[in-house]
């Protein structure tokens, strides 16, 4: 040891001797590294960059039957036969890949898309043999057959379907980390003793013949951490993910014929995504305890878990739950109090009595659905809030920072609505504007003294239907809405002719008739309380030109989509300044 210490002392005086290694040794060292690390090493120094650049790697290698066939068709005068195309393509891929294999050039991504005629799989087998020898890190294989094409959406997985039987031996390739398969089948196969270091497996439209086939994959690929099933065909009704001992992330999406349930019990998953109609997700307390990311859509996880996300998912950071309540069940209350939760996105298509969110780290809350009657949000770190529902919540209690980036509420309005809707909106505003509620509020047919003065309400109105019969409604709607909310800004869009027409008529009359207004603010007509206003269409100032603005609304298209840029959906922009109660209105 003393010799070693001496050595360290002596040699440390030299600097950057590492870069003095001969080029071939540097290349040899690089050959032990994954390509990502090789590329990252380019940034170390100029010497490293030039040494690194002379080391040959391939980032993307693609053999695609379809584009090859297209080129061949465009180049030749007589349309080539299908087997001629196949043969030429195979020949080309074979030649090219052989060279890569022979020189052991590392390949980051290799994609192979081949077409098989009838059951002639020998060409594919030969190519796969080459693929197995290549130094590939991410492999993607798509085998088309007469029963399974790239343009075929509806594949019928019946008994006689011709599909390429995926050779397990491919997974043994030393550098392989990620494998994507489309249109192959796995059959059970005695392949004990085979070992693969594969970490990520993505299966799309793959046929899994039996539970043993799945066990086989799990046995020869024990390192798998990420797995995805996308529209696969199972001959089993329960997918047991505990077969994969190191699994961290699992995704099940699309329609999976036959499959009834996904079982994640006895796994240690960190991320679970399931988007598959009517699939049952079997979970238990232990299985969920490590989950940080949970995205579920249209599947059923059981009401007990939903009711108590906090206990079941103690580490949850990101959750997205859409339509996860079965129609036969009733859920009246959801409580979320997860200490690590940062983002929560919910979509429920039925009214639920109460939601209570009490998460110290939550920064994004997003809800779309029928509505909650009572909403309790206690989230001191909330940055954005998007709440979109049919019904206005009866009670909303917010404890969130005052400097939120984005605080958006959206409610649907039926054009036959009555006064009570405005009352509920006013109550709602009163509740969320908690710093302004001290004065109390009395609403008497919109004519009461306006003691509660909402501040900084930014109103966006998107009228999905505004046909001639809504003329009367628009008048009442504008009156009610503006009176109740006293918006600082108001953006309108879509089918909004009647709305804008009436609005413009009234703001043009501002302060004109002063006979009705006493010393206080006008308690009859909201437009008498406007001290100043600005009107814009997109960026163009239209304040002096209200008549042509109204004409422009006729061209405003009807839009239904909810999340375009607001400026495109609601291009008519009003900005108001209001007389305050302390000041005498100027008549």
């Amino acid at each position, binding site marked *: 040891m003393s*010799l*070693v210490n001496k050595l360290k002392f002596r040699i440390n005086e030299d600097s950057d001797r590492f870069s003095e*290694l001969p080029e071939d*040794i540097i290349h040899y060292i690089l050959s032990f590294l*994954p390509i*990502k690390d090789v590329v990252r*090493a380019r*940034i170390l*120094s*100029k010497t490293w960059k030039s040494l690194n650049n002379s080391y040959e790697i391939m980032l993307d290698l693609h053999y695609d039957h379809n584009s090859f066939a297209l080129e061949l068709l465009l180049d030749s005068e007589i349309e080539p036969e299908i087997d001629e195309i196949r043969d030429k393509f195979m020949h080309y891929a074979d030649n090219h890949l052989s060279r890569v294999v022979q020189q052991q050039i590392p390949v980051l991504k290799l994609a192979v898309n081949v077409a098989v005629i009838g059951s002639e799989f020998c060409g594919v087998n030969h190519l796969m043999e080459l693929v197995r020898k290549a130094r590939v890190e991410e492999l993607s294989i798509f085998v088309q057959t007469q029963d399974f094409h790239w343009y075929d959406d509806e594949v019928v997985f019946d008994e006689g379907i011709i599909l390429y039987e995926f050779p397990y031996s491919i997974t043994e390739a030393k550098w392989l980390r990620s494998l994507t398969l489309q249109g192959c089948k796995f059959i059970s196969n005695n392949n004990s003793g085979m070992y693969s270091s594969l970490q990520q497996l993505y299966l799309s439209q793959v046929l899994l013949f039996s539970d043993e086939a799945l066990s086989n994959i799990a046995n020869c690929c024990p390192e798998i951490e990420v797995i995805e099933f996308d529209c696969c065909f199972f001959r089993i009704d329960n997918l047991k993910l505990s077969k994969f001992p190191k699994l961290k992330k699992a995704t099940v999406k699309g329609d999976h014929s036959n499959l009834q349930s996904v079982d994640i019990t006895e796994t240690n998953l960190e991320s679970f995504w399931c988007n598959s109609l009517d699939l049952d997700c079997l979970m238990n307390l232990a299985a969920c305890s490590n989950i940080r990311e949970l995205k579920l859509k249209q599947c059923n996880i059981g009401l007990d878990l939903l009711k108590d996300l906090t206990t079941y998912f103690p580490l949850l950071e990101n959750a997205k739950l859409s339509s996860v309540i079965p129609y036969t069940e009733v859920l009246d209350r959801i409580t979320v109090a997860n200490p690590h939760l940062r983002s929560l996105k919910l979509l429920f298509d039925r009214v639920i009595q109460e939601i209570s969110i009490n998460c110290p780290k939550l920064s994004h809350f997003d809800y779309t659905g029928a509505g909650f009657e009572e909403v309790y949000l206690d989230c001191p770190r909330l940055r954005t809030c998007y709440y979109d529902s049919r019904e206005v919540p009866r009670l909303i209690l917010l404890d969130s920072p005052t400097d939120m980036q984005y605080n958006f509420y959206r409610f649907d309005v039926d054009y036959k609505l009555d006064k009570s809707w405005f009352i509920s909106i006013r109550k709602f505003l009163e509740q969320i504007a908690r710093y302004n509620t001290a004065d109390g509020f009395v609403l008497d047919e919109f004519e009461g003294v306006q003691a509660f003065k909402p501040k900084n309400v930014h109103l966006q109105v998107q009228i999905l239907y505004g046909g001639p019969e809504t003329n009367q409604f628009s008048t009442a709607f504008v009156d009610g809405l503006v009176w109740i909310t006293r918006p600082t800004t108001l953006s309108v869009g879509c089918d909004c002719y009647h709305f804008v027409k009436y609005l413009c008529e009234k703001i043009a009359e501002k302060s004109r008739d002063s006979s009705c207004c006493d010393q206080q603010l006008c308690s009859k007509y909201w437009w008498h309380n406007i001290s100043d206003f600005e009107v814009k269409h997109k960026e163009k100032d239209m304040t002096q030109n209200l008549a042509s603005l109204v004409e422009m609304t006729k061209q405003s298209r009807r839009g239904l989509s909810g999340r375009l840029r607001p400026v495109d959906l609601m291009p008519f922009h009003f900005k108001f300044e209001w007389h305050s109660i302390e000041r005498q209105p100027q008549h």
Partner: protein
Amino acid sequence: MASSSSSSLSRVVVKSSDNNLFVVNKKVASQSQLLKQCIDNMEEKGTNDVILIPLSNVTSNILTLVLEYCEKHADFADDDNNNQELKQWDHEFLKKFDYATLNSLTMAADYMVTKSLLNLCCQFIADSIKDLTVQQIRQIFDIKNDFTPQEEADIKNENAWAFR
């Protein structure tokens, strides 16, 4: 004894770049293809003299380490069963050095054509790079960053996927 055959020659002398002499058992020396080639050549000539092999590129400090490695591997040369033990020893052996030493050792292994040691060193260096940040690699390997911030940003942009 005077007419001893070439096979009776059991030791060679290796001279380091700083003129230190090392007496090495032939079996140990054979771990290096360079030394083995020299010995074979001399033996073909039928010389009975002690063979002296000068290594102009390897200092005695590094040579000591290479020979330590060769000695251990010569011990295990006929024994396949103790592979695991040898692997463990290899790992412990390299773990002791700082990267500058490792660097010299790698060069010596390359020069002396000791393929398994070269393999071992390169794999070891690669493994150490694998999980480090660029900053850490520069620090440990004492690599001076001679890029301007703009050049560095350009490389990052060109290969954005690798820096994610």
